[in-house]
Each structure stands twice: as structure tokens, then as C-alpha cells.
């Protein structure tokens, strides 16, 4: 399949001053960004952040209230016919006849796109050969997601929009989806992924856009988003006196989750030594100590909190 994914335009996706309103509610508020071919751009955000509305405007399902969208240099509504031939889409859910069988559905979509993708090879590629004669309604959640991905791949896409592609998929299925995403990227496809799963974004993203309440609150590569935000992380099941520890270390200590703590602003080994000394002196059990750049979920939490305030 990858050998056929080799002729791409230099234009991926360009969104400029996009506004989408539903009545009085503004779902997307003057959003601008670009996405390049040969890169995976992940749109991150909580539910209701404006991710799906933005993607649907790019796919030509929604007419923007204001602003413009160009996909592969084409207008998604006015040049829909040309665009549909080279755009793969994976809806967040549904989109398939419940009584349709996996094999015949993939065959139908390969025929509709007419880009020379072999249906049987595609079914095998997404790991559904064992359920090729099973109807959609009898598939597991993960199998449904992989079928939806197969239909997007049937387009032999130059740009692909994947809405929550790993949602409900087991570990092996996730590995498969990630490998397909990398294959698309390496073949030069412009891959756009919308997700609220931060771990997933961290594994596949080249570029990240963080949406919050209809705005982009941060954008850049993963390293850019995490840079300048060093931290020490540790776990403890004991009661940790955050004020005492912060005073001792000279850095703010926060509890991020149950039994998980971070020392913000440093990854210095000397501070780690101070931390373990303090734990020993105060009879506090600590473990899983790690240091480095802030994780994406912490970046996300910080940015969305800043945006909310």
C-alpha cells in the first residue's frame, strides 16, 4: 500500500480565521493554522473544544460562519468533487450500514474511490480478515474503528482526517493504527488526528494544536510545547506535606493525580537528592522518581487552566 502513496502536493491544510457558530453559540472562534504533508498533526482538546467542528468544516460537512479553509489547495465545499477523490475520512462513530459485511463494504468503498486499492489487501492490513464476512453490527468496538479506518484508506488519501481513531481499541489494535498512521505520514500523506487522548497524541504527533473553548491555546511540535517546563515526578502513597516539601526544595510541589506528585520548574539531580533526603527524614515512602520535560497531559492541563482563567 505504501508504494502507491508517493505522489503528493506540497499543500496540506490551511485554515484561516475560521469561525463556526451554532445559533448564538460560537464553537470555533477565529482559528488559524496549517498542516503539512508528511506530518501528523494532532488536534487536542476536551469535549466541546471545537475539534470536530473544525474538522467537519475541513471535510466539507459544515459551512463556516466566517473564515476560509483550503484542503490540498481546494475549497472543501465548492471543489468537493475533486477533493473527495483524494481525501480519507474516519468519522468519530457510525457511517456504516449495520447489515453490511466487512469485506463487501471495503470492496464497495474501494470501487467508489476507484484509486486502485485492493480490497482484500486492505482488509488484511487493518487486521479484519477473520471477520471479513461478519456484519458491522456484530463487530466489537475496536473492529468497528478499524473498519472505519479501512474505508478512509480506500481513498488512497493525500490527506486523511481521523476523528478519535484509537477510541475503544485494545492495545494491539492501537499499535496497528499507529503503524498505519506512521506509514501514511512516511508516504507523504497529510495526517490530521483529532483526539482527547493525550497519551495517544504523545505517541503519534509531529505537530500539536491544543483547542480550548473554540480557540487554539497552543500550537507547535511536541518538543516546543514541552520546552522550558522541566519537572521531577514521583509517586507516594503516604501523606505528603506539600508546603514543607516545597519550602525544603525551593520549588513548588503539586499533586497531579492520586499518589502522583510533581516538582515544577527543575529536573536537577541535586533536587532529587534533596527530595529523597526529605522523604527519609519525614518517613514518607516515595518511588518511581523521574525527571525531564513536562508530559503533554501536564502541558495540556496548564494551558487549558490558563485559558479558562
Amino acid at each position, binding site marked *: 500500500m505504501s508504494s502507491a502513496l508517493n505522489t503528493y502536493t506540497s499543500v496540506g491544510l490551511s485554515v484561516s480565521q475560521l469561525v463556526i457558530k451554532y445559533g448564538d453559540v460560537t464553537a470555533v472562534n477565529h482559528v488559524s493554522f496549517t498542516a503539512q504533508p508528511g506530518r501528523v498533526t494532532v488536534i487536542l482538546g476536551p469535549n466541546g473544544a471545537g475539534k470536530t467542528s473544525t474538522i467537519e468544516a475541513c*471535510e*466539507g*460537512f459544515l459551512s463556516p460562519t466566517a473564515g476560509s479553509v483550503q484542503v490540498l489547495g481546494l475549497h472543501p465545499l465548492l471543489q468537493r*468533487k475533486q477533493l*473527495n*477523490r483524494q*481525501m480519507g*475520512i474516519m*468519522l468519530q*462513530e*457510525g*457511517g*456504516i*450500514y*449495520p*447489515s*453490511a459485511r466487512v469485506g*463487501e463494504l471495503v470492496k*464497495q*468503498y474501494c*470501487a*467508489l*474511490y*476507484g484509486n486502485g486499492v485492493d480490497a482484500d489487501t486492505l482488509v488484511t492490513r487493518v487486521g479484519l480478515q477473520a471477520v471479513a464476512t461478519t456484519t458491522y453490527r456484530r463487530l466489537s468496538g475496536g473492529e468497528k474503528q478499524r473498519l472505519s479506518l479501512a*474505508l478512509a484508506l480506500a*481513498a488512497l488519501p493525500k490527506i486523511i482526517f481521523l476523528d478519535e481513531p484509537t477510541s475503544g481499541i485494545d492495545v494491539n489494535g492501537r499499535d496497528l493504527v499507529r503503524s498505519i498512521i506512521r506509514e501514511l505520514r512516511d508516504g507523504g500523506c497529510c495526517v490530521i488526528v483529532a483526539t482527547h487522548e493525550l497519551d495517544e497524541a504523545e505517541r503519534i504527533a509531529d505537530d500539536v494544536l491544543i483547542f480550548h473553548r473554540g480557540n487554539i491555546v497552543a500550537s507547535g511540535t511536541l518538543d516546543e510545547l514541552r520546552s522550558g517546563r522541566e519537572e521531577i515526578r514521583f509517586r507516594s502513597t503516604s501523606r505528603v506535606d506539600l508546603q514543607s516539601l516545597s519550602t525544603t526544595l525551593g520549588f513548588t510541589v503539586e499533586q497531579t493525580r492520586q499518589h502522583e506528585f510533581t516538582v515544577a520548574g527543575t529536573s536537577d539531580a541535586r533536587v532529587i537528592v534533596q527530595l529523597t533526603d526529605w522523604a527519609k527524614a519525614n518517613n514518607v515512602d516515595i518511588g518511581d522518581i523521574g525527571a525531564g520535560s513536562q508530559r503533554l497531559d501536564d502541558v495540556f492541563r496548564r494551558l487549558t487552566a490558563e485559558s479558562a482563567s
Partner: protein
Amino acid sequence: MKLLRVQLACELRVLARNGEQLLLILGIPMLLLSFFSNVDILPTADQSNVDFLLPGIIALAVMSTAMVSLGIATGFERSYLVLKRLGATPLGVPRLVLAKALSVLVVEIVQVILLVALAYAFGANLGALNLAKLVLAIALGTLAFSGIGLSLAGRLRGEVNLAAQNALYLVMLLVGGIVFPLQDLPSWLQWVGRITPSGALADVMRDVFSATSTYGASPLVILLGWAIVAQLSAFKLFRWN
């Protein structure tokens, strides 16, 4: 042409797998025709049961396929986002609509062949059959009923649409003079029945199978009116997702 063929095959495949739809479009019309042709309980005056029933049952078959079957299937496809997903393929709206129209046509041809063959086996007199008028009646009936079906399917949620289509089917079956003569109903209900699309189509069908025209041009005009209004309504009300 290839895309149209692919989609038409899909439409027919999905229909063939749906037992409820098959019961509706083939089972019920054939059962009604078989039962009432052979059980002498209908007040059909000087006509044989089967000669009275066949035109109305063909009208019922057209209504089942073009309104209820198409409307329910399209409503669920809309709810399941099938139409939305297909909208992002090179198929395009005109070919999707044409594929649906052709699938209705294929089913109606099968229905008419089976019903006429069954009626003939029960002794129906087909000597006066006007084929051109039959085609015209089916075409107008299909336009009228598909317009009504798609108007409901385009706005209502899947389950609500299902209930609405079935309720409308039952009402039109009862007041349209399909299984018993309209003249046996109260006069105000006769008037209502004659202006419903099922009543108008049944009247036109009776003229199709008769050597003389009993109803004149009025049912054809009523049916034409329904065809125009229903199609305009579908055009205005239908939403793809």
C-alpha cells in the same frame, strides 16, 4: 456509470438482507391478494375478488416500496451517518439519489410481475390491461410516495420516522380503498380517501385494468398534484445528516 452500479448493488443488497422490509414490500401485498382473492368476504359487487383487489394491491405495493421502505431505510441511514459518510466519497448526491430511485424501480418491477402472476393464477382477467397507463401510474405514485417518505425521513429521528411511516401506511391502507371499495365508506370518508395519494393511485390503477374509465382524469390529476407537492416538500425538508 460504474459508481452508480456499485451503489445500486449495495442498495439492493442491504434491502435483500432486511427481513422486515421484504415482508412489507412483498409479503404483505401477496398475502392480502392471496387471502382476499380466495375468501369471499369483500363487497365487490359484480367484480370477482381478485379483479377488484389487484389494482389496489399494486397501489399498496408502490406505497410500501416508495414511501415506507425507502423512507425507513433512508431515515436510519441518516441516523447512522451512512449518508454523511457516502457524501465524502466520489459518489456524489445525484448518483446516490439515482441509485435509490433505481433500487425502488427494480423492486417495483419485481412486485408487479409477482402480483400480476399471482392474480392471474387466481383467475384475474388481464385482457384490458393498459401497460402505458400502468407505467404512468407507477411513476406518479412513486414520485408522490417517495416525496412523502423522504420528507419524513429527512427530518425525524430514526425510530420516530419508523413509527410515523408505519402509521401513515396503515391510515392510507384503510382510507385509500385498497382492500375494500371506497363507496362502502361514509361519504365524508370517501371524499378524504379519494384525495389521499393511496386512494388516487388505487383509482388510477382500477382504470388501468378496466376497459372503460370509471374515474375519469381526476384521480390522475390528484396523483400528479401529490407527486409535485411531495417532491417539493422532500427537496425543502430533507437533511443529509
